[in-house]
């Protein structure tokens, strides 16, 4: 690499930054202490996009628990609520019981495949724009800038000896950080309890200890992760940078320094031109380095640390405008395009690159999981019955030789209204059913009342004097549970059970 350092920079139309990438390729060591990064602020398309996404994601996080959704009966009226105490998950019109947790598994699969899809389309778009670590770090950096000034001011402040001015700036920054951290932890708990009630309890000191502990833990993690660890979380703690290598291909959009255009870089272009050297578009102003929140030099190439936030694109474009070169020296590009351009065949990105086997497969899988969930959610039963046979003793012989088995019939009424069910049996010859806890209908079936949104367990005895069923070790029969409802939406189900006889031995 030819590097000419001359005095021609005097008349340069752009600022040259005295910046060296903290995590540049040459400086990386496996066991190095963290060197603080002082990212410079920037403006441009991607910076504005990041502000917008930050506003939306933070709004979603802070507003969601306060949305109300009226539900019938005693069910809570909070739109999004994870009710751990009562083992329910509410999401607008959806109510999920613990045994329906597979819906949450489905959501996680969708999130995972969605991440794969986004990565193969736009590289690490998640990391650069939407990841909470990025959003909160960005927010903390904005606060830092407000309290201590931009890059150079902060570097100067760090180096300055102790003074009351420094103390004040630091105190303002840390206080604001702490406030944001408390709010972050504080709003997390609102997803797990009625938000207005909990807020009142939190303020009066009467909330459950677990609420305060959760807030304290999340306050601590937010404060350290967004305030002090920042890029270290992405580089060392998060597995995603390692996984992304398998997700990216030559068509994925990644933030790329177009070295084929920029090199050889010269800080003193005119002098270099005068010396008739080959001159690339890169003016080596280090703007891309100064703004990088990860402390890397994008000109080192595609690298693990890069979260693809594209702030270096904004910084470089501004400089290119000033020096009169075309924008896009650093741009979203693909390794395929890069190789083609480097080989001398100009190529431009086309949206058709988004449609390829990999993205189609990810998209199809994502849609398939979503559809399966939607369909099963639309048609899911709001009645579930579990038949638990007594196992000790398996059977009881009564004085007239009749064999009796005991069962616990568990009726899960998952609707927000009380319901009545008729529980009968089929397929067991000579059988009679009785329960001490419930009325017996003339047909031999029993009528069970189930409270709204509750499990009703009822003990029933089934007995038969049928010669075959008495002796057979296991006779299969069926419990038939039918809702007694005048409305057209009555549910019913058939549930298999086994009747245990004495066996041949006796």
């Amino acid at each position: 690499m030819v590097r000419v350092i001359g005095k021609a920079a005097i008349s340069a139309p752009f600022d040259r930054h005295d910046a060296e990438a903290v995590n540049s390729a040459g400086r990386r060591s496996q066991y190095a202490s963290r060197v603080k990064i002082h990212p410079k602020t920037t403006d441009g398309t991607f910076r504005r996009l990041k502000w917008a996404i930050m506003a939306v994601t933070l709004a979603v996080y802070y507003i969601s628990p306060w949305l109300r959704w009226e539900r019938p009966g005693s069910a809570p009226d909070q739109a999004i609520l994870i009710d751990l105490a009562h083992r329910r998950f509410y999401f607008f019109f959806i109510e999920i019981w613990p045994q329906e947790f597979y819906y949450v598994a489905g959501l996680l699969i969708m999130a995972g495949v969605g991440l794969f899809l986004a990565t193969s389309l736009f590289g690490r778009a998640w990391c650069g724009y939407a990841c909470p670590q990025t959003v909160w770090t960005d927010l903390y950096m904005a606060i830092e800038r407000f309290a201590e000034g931009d890059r150079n001011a902060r570097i100067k402040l760090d180096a300055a000896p102790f003074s009351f001015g420094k103390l004040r700036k630091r105190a303002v920054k840390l206080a604001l950080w702490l406030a944001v951290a408390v709010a972050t932890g504080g709003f997390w708990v609102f997803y797990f309890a009625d938000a207005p009630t909990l807020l009142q309890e939190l303020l009066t000191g009467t909330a459950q200890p677990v609420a305060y502990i959760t807030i304290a833990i999340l306050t601590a993690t937010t404060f350290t992760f967004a305030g002090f660890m920042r890029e270290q979380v992405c580089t060392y703690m998060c597995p995603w940078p390692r996984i992304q290598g398998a997700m990216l291909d030559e068509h994925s959009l990644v933030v790329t320094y177009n070295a084929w255009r920029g090199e050889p870089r010269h800080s003193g272009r005119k002098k270099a031109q005068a010396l008739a050297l080959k001159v690339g578009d890169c003016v080596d102003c280090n703007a891309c380095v100064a703004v990088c929140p990860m402390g890397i030099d994008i000109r080192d190439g595609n690298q693990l640390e890069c979260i693809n936030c594209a702030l270096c694109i904004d910084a470089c474009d501004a400089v290119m405008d000033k020096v009169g070169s075309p924008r896009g020296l650093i741009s979203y590009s693909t390794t395929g395009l890069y190789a083609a351009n480097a080989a001398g065949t100009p190529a431009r990105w086309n949206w058709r690159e988004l449609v390829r086997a990999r993205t189609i497969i990810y998209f199809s899988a994502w849609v398939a999981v979503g559809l399966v969930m939607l369909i099963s959610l639309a048609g899911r039963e709001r009645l579930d019955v579990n038949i638990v046979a007594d196992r000790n003793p398996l059977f009881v012989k009564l004085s007239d030789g009749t064999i009796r088995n005991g069962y616990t019939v568990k009726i899960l009424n998952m609707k927000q209204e009380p319901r009545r069910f008729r529980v009968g049996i089929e397929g067991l010859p000579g059988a009679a059913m009785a329960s001490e806890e419930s009325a017996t209908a003339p047909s031999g079936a029993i009528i069970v009342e189930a409270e709204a949104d509750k499990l009703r367990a009822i003990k029933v005895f089934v007995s038969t004097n049928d010669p075959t069923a008495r002796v057979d070790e296991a006779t299969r029969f069926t419990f038939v549970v039918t809702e007694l409802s005048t409305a057209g939406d009555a549910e019913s189900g058939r549930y298999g059970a086994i009747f245990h006889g004495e066996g041949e031995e006796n």
Partner: protein
Amino acid sequence: MANIERDEVSGTETTGHEWDGIKELNTPLPNWWRWTFYATVVWGLGYTVAYPAWPLISGATPGVLGYSSRQEVANDIAAAAEAQAQWAERIRATSLEDILKDEELLRFAKAGGAAAFRVNCVQCHGSGAAGFVGYPNLNDNDWLWGGTVDQIHQTIANGVRYTANADTRDSQMPAFGADGVLTAEQIGDVANYIVQLSGGQADQAAAGRGGQVFTDNCVACHGEKAEGNKELGAPNLADQITLYGGDVAAVSAQTAKPRHGVMPAWSDKLDEVKIKELAVFVHALGGGEQAAATP
């Protein structure tokens, strides 16, 4: 200490120890680790002063805080008893028949009875209350001493053939064989008769002869139809449930030289509330009888 040697590769000091040309680097523990270690030592010493720790010849140092795990358990039990006190009081004050009618009280009594059963009764009656040879099955509808909740309560409270209790359930079947009341043939005949009554495999001819033996010797206690007598604890011989086995050999043995089970009187050991809860629990196992309607 005069010659501190530095390792060229790592730049770390050596300890000056050398084995076969290999020198040990001086890499001390990190300070945070060392001070944490000292802190745990200090904390550990403090702990042994505050809590029971140092073994003595009998027992251990009590610790200045006076903590005792036994006392903690005792406190927990006392707290639980206090929490249940109002329920226990209601059970004490309510008659058994009324407990059966009160859904809330019934649920509490059944749960308490189930717990007491697991501690006190499973040793003989089995964890499922299904009994064993000589130990009655409590799930069925055949009761030696009666199956209403009050009768069950009396049996649990006073025991069976438990001589230390004056009100115990007591009865004794004569040893028809051992005492020479009946001959071996007669015993065989009556055993066949009884087995036939309850629908088992029996010798018709012997059973025919046994009918007269039964009428002459057994009806006083077991009744003319062998239906038993709960006042005397005489079992129903016509049903399909037997305590000591239902074939001819088992019935013959029980006639010749009867075995008699003993159950302790639980009023010696359990309080009134627990016994009531047990009675309710056993009554609800599936064979409980309704009290005869009193006019």
